[in-house]
């Protein structure tokens, strides 16, 4: 007891000393200024830098892009006169067959990555939640791909997919008997989209698993105990307790991955660059080509606004669904 008192006393005197030092170190002018401020003013003083930063790097570029989408501005001709072209940029973007094709490629990529990542991620989370021997070690191992940079992942998967020296083709050959150099994952029109889906799933499934694991760990044990008392089968417990209670977390994971995958650029660029032909040219790559190869800044701004509206609308639906699930 004495020891505890002693430690507390030491701590409190240390805190007092630190506070005294802080007071002494604060310039008198600053101290006087802060003393006269209300709580509300101090709160505003703390959040103003964040709001200013948000306005400067998020809101202003958005408004600027909206403005540019109505002009014929080209970033490679900064001194040329900027004319207002009304809705012509939107008209062109929404009647362009290539952009429409890019949208379909994006939809294919987003749909399959989300399906695979959710199913595999939830399954892994369910298995890890069983708390078997060494589960902490395996959790760390599974999380490794998520910690890597997309640039690194894109580069090393390009080597793995090499038909002559790549490990991937040899593994497929080992299991199926198909000669390793007879197929090219990144060079084939039919296989390239799936090659990208595979890499994205490999990289981001651990992220979905982590969110699902948080959901599974948040389910109280007494609900399962009550179900056991009612002689509910494992299958019944899974569908009536586990899934409904983990659903908000699963939906959150789907929302995060959905928004992220709509913007997918780096990995696709490194793996295929949109090829072969334009089979893996997702919307962000088409956007980059319009903006920095064709230098049609106004038109690419209109395209960016189109993507933004799509993602914003989707986020609204998801937030509504999430609130509904939470209220249950």
């Amino acid at each position, binding site marked *: 007891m004495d020891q505890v008192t002693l430690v507390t006393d030491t701590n409190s005197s240390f805190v007092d000393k630190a506070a005294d030092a802080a007071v002494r170190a604060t310039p008198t002018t600053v101290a006087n200024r802060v003393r006269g401020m209300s709580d509300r003013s101090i709160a505003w003083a703390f959040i103003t830098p964040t709001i200013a930063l948000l306005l400067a790097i998020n809101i202003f570029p958005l408004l600027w892009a909206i403005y540019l989408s109505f002009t014929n501005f080209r970033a490679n001709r900064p001194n040329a006169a900027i004319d207002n072209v009304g809705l012509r940029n939107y008209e062109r973007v*929404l009647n362009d067959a290539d952009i429409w094709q890019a949208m379909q490629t994006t*939809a294919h990529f987003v749909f399959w990555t989300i399906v695979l990542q959710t199913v595999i991620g939830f399954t892994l989370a369910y298995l890890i939640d069983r708390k078997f021997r060494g589960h902490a070690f395996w959790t760390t191992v599974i999380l490794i791909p998520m910690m890597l940079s997309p640039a690194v992942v894109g580069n090393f998967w390009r080597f793995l997919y090499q038909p002559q020296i790549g490990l991937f083709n040899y593994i497929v050959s080992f299991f199926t008997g198909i000669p390793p150099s007879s197929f090219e994952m990144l060079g084939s029109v039919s296989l390239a989209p799936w090659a990208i889906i595979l890499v994205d799933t490999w990289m981001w499934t651990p992220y979905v698993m982590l969110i699902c694991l948080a959901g599974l760990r948040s389910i109280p044990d007494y609900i399962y105990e009550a179900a056991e008392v009612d002689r509910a089968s494992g299958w019944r417990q899974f569908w009536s307790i586990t899934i409904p209670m983990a659903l908000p977390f699963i939906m959150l994971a789907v929302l995060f991955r959905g928004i992220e995958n709509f913007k997918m650029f780096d990995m696709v660029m490194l793996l295929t660059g949109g090829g072969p032909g334009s089979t893996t040219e997702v919307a962000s790559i088409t956007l980059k080509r319009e903006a920095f190869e064709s230098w049609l800044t106004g038109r690419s701004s209109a395209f960016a606004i189109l993507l933004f*509206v799509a993602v914003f*609308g*989707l986020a*609204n*639906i998801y937030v509504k669904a999430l609130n509904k699930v939470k209220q249950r």
Partner: protein
Amino acid sequence: MTDQLFTTPKEPKPRRPFFLRRGPMENIATAVIGLGFLMLFQPFAMILYTWSLVTLLAGTAMFIIVSKFPE
């Protein structure tokens, strides 16, 4: 006491018109956004893709407005 027993119950508050109720209007806005989203990514008709942005914008604007309505 008898007065209290025989008082007529208060009339329930008149319900807001359908287009001013948050629940159904949010559902309609969500359906419009969903429709716009499908129109944007469908591979069947160019005309649907052309009109997708207008549909998405209408749905999103509607959602933002109706989500401020009281329950």
